[in-house]
């Protein structure tokens, strides 16, 4: 497969949010891009102003809100929409998809598949049967099998400024990894491959929990020691949770795990970090979500993971305390105090002693 071949057909990006726009931009150095936005005003805005959310587009990017057209024109699609809307988006898109399509998603959240009439609150237990990664949603809702995901330390703002960065593409198919590499790679953007799709997805999703915690520590005014403590303990917790949910440890040690974790935990730009920060400053969750323009996946992830951790009996103290802060009115200060006193075996959980 040569680059020329690929560039004959445009590549699709679904979702014109912050990250979607950033990816569309990176792709546009190599190939024509069709950028799908649900809102026709956004499409109009992009077409007229050649700009969206601070990302300036070159002439290779065309905006559309026609799914049939998108699927017909593009063999390769990058769906980057919030996890809560992902399944609905796939249902709409599915009739136009074929087994030759390649889909590489960039959504770091879980999908919930509950029995009719149930909500997360009414479910007695939550198991892996109810919790789906985005690649699983793609495979359930469509005939697409060549699925991959995109994860790593990729803050949209830095990408927009063409700062050096890297990402990992995970897929069981070499073809998907190679295609993704060819499309995304440039002198400012390095791309690695990994064949543990589930592991990389898990790492990307679970790190959002730790990002909220990191924001909270920062909001309390603590410095680098506390952050180092959090990141290393957070990584351990992610690994335990990830294993219970079907990923391998290895993926957590790469770009999608440690790489992304360090970045998000240090970045006041990230939404999840912001949620934690403002919580520590004494705001309530409702207030924060009210004026946050984009989705903070971490909040929902904590609700889901807390329940799964209960079922699989995984020790996840950080997730557990954050859950209490977010939904049960515990203050960040109390939660931290609890974590610092948390009794654990010395050899494994050395930090919290």
């Amino acid at each position, binding site marked *: 497969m040569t680059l020329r071949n690929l560039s004959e057909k445009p590549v699709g990006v679904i979702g014109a949010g912050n990250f979607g726009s950033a990816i569309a931009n990176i792709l546009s150095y190599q190939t024509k891009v069709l950028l799908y936005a649900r809102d026709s005003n956004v499409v109009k805005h992009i077409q007229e102003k050649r700009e969206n959310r601070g990302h300036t587009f070159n002439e290779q990017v065309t905006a559309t809100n026609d799914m049939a057209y998108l699927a017909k024109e593009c063999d390769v699609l990058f769906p980057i929409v919030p996890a809560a809307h992902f399944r609905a988006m796939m249902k709409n898109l599915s009739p136009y998809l074929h*087994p*030759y399509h390649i889909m590489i998603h960039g959504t770091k959240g879980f999908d919930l598949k509950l029995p009719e009439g149930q909500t997360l609150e009414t479910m007695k237990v939550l198991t892996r049967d109810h919790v789906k990664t985005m690649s699983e949603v793609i495979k359930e809702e469509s005939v697409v*099998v060549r699925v991959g995901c995109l994860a790593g330390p990729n803050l949209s703002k830095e990408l927009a400024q063409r700062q050096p960065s890297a990402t990992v593409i995970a897929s*069981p198919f*070499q073809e998907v990894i190679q295609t993704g590499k060819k499309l995304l790679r440039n002198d400012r953007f390095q791309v690695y491959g990994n064949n543990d799709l589930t592991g990389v997805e898990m790492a990307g999703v679970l790190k959002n929990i730790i990002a909220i915690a990191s924001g909270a520590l920062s909001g309390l005014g603590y410095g680098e020691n506390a952050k180092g403590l959090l990141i290393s303990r957070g990584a351990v917790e992610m690994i335990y949770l990830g294993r219970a949910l079907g990923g391998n440890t290895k993926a957590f040690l790469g770009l999608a795990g440690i790489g992304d974790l360090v970045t998000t935990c240090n970045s006041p730009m990230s939404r999840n970090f912001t949620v934690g920060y403002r919580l520590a400053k004494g705001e309530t969750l409702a207030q924060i979500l009210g004026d946050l323009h984009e989705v903070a996946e971490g909040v929902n992830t904590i609700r889901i993971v807390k329940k799964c951790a209960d079922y699989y009996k995984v020790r996840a103290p950080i997730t557990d305390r954050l859950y209490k802060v977010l939904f049960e009115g515990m203050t960040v200060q109390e939660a931290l105090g609890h974590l610092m006193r948390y009794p654990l075996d010395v050899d494994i959980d050395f930090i919290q002693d």
Partner: protein
Amino acid sequence: MEIVEKKNKNIGYEPILDGIPNWPVYQLSKNRKEFLEEVTEKSITRIKELRPTRKQLIDELEATVYREQNRMKRNRWRVDPPDENAFWADIKKDLVELSNKSENEAPNKEDEILRKISYRYANEIAGNFKPSSYKVARAVIKFGFRRLLNGARVKKFGAIFRSKYTLRDKIHIVGKAKMIRKLAKKGTVVMVPTHFSNLDSVLIGWVIHSLGLPAFLYGAGLNLFNIKIIAYFMNSLGAYKVDRRKKNLPYLETLKMYSNIALQKGAHSLFFPGGTRSRSGAIESRLRLGLLSTSVEAQRNLYLDKPNQGEEVRKIFVVPVTLNYHFVLEAPDLIEDYLHVKGQDRYFPEQDNYGSMQLLKFMFKFFTKGSNISVSIGPGLDVLGNYVDSDGNSLDAQGRVIDTRDYFISNGKVCVDLQREDEYTRMLGNKIVKEYHRINRAFASHLVAFIAFEMWMKKFPKLDLFSILRLPEEDLEIEYAEFRDTFKRVRKEVYRLKDEDKINYATHFKGKADEVIKHGLDNVGTFHLKRPLLKNKKGNIITHDLTVLYYYHNRLTGYDLEKFI
């Protein structure tokens, strides 16, 4: 009162192709020589792709010779040809000569050696389907079985000449029989049954015939050919041989190419994707993907041959089949093997302690005493594991038609991507395993074995499996009332699973608990020297052979029924 299996409705099927000369398998064996040459040449091409340099190829050949000579020393079978030693000694000599020469002195010599090996393998693998012996074998099976059955069932002099009972009363074929017939007309069928007993091969041959399907190309373990009587039937049914001792690259590639090309030529095929008989007694949960991958590859090649969208291409359909027995002759040995391996990770050579005599005796017992067999035929799948309708169209989860060709397309063209196809094969394998469990037809005997064993497991929560199996059998007894309650509870869960379309059960499964339990106890492993499960004088449940009970119990593992004991 005896619970009788509902009489089978299917009275028999007309053959879908009249006249053996039309059968693909006959066409293959008529042009045997050309076919084998094609297999050899294409295998060589493939092997050279995998070992592209001269050095790599020679290394591979040396490894092959080493392994083969080792095998002959350690693990020789009756079926092995007598000239084996000489052949490999020659190859070794050729290789030694070659190693002293440069590429220019002996150009393409390594190809020649490879050709010799591959051709020999192809010859060894290939079956030899002869219409005359096929007919004889078919008649013998049919006639012999029917006579036995009638003689045994109706206890009157002269009954042996009556035809009141046929095999069909003994062997229940359920599931998508009509569909497989339609698919066999539309495309090429690959039947993939579960594998529990050496009897499977003969049984499935009869099933294929009685469905009115032409003879299938048959992958059978070479070890089966050690048993003369089976070897006779297998040979005449057109079986090809799979030798699981040979793990060298030239052999594996030749074997796969054989199946691949036969499929492309439209020969309906059959192999056991579990590889060998299930040692534990459980339904296969991991398949060997080697032969399975040939169906994916063959399908891709068929699309490659007709590269234009919309051109009619013969499709390959994969049909999972689950076989169910109350009784497996080899159970005690199989489970010993299994525990041996599980207990300590060691290789065990495949051996069969049953010769022709034992098998005949078993057959006689089987026909004289009631022990039914059930064969569930699953719905057809395409090579990606999508369900197909009876016209052979692949369907997605929403019921929309999928063009299977699209799976092999990149940048608008059908292309070869072996890594991608490996992944497809894995997906297909997972789907087959899921189907096995779904179409599995549980018997009362499986359920009583499952419940009894799990109840004993629960009684000794501190013991691991091996310690439980070492418990003296005299110490084990379950109150009948308690057993009955558990039985009812677990059976209800099986009903629920069936409603969720996760399992199936035999017609005798429903009815009064006491009667179904009795049916189960009477049938579970009934011809073993030591009965795995029975009632004592007090009417309580006891065992004479816990290990064999464990084997029959395993049949219902994988459904999470343990939780309800």
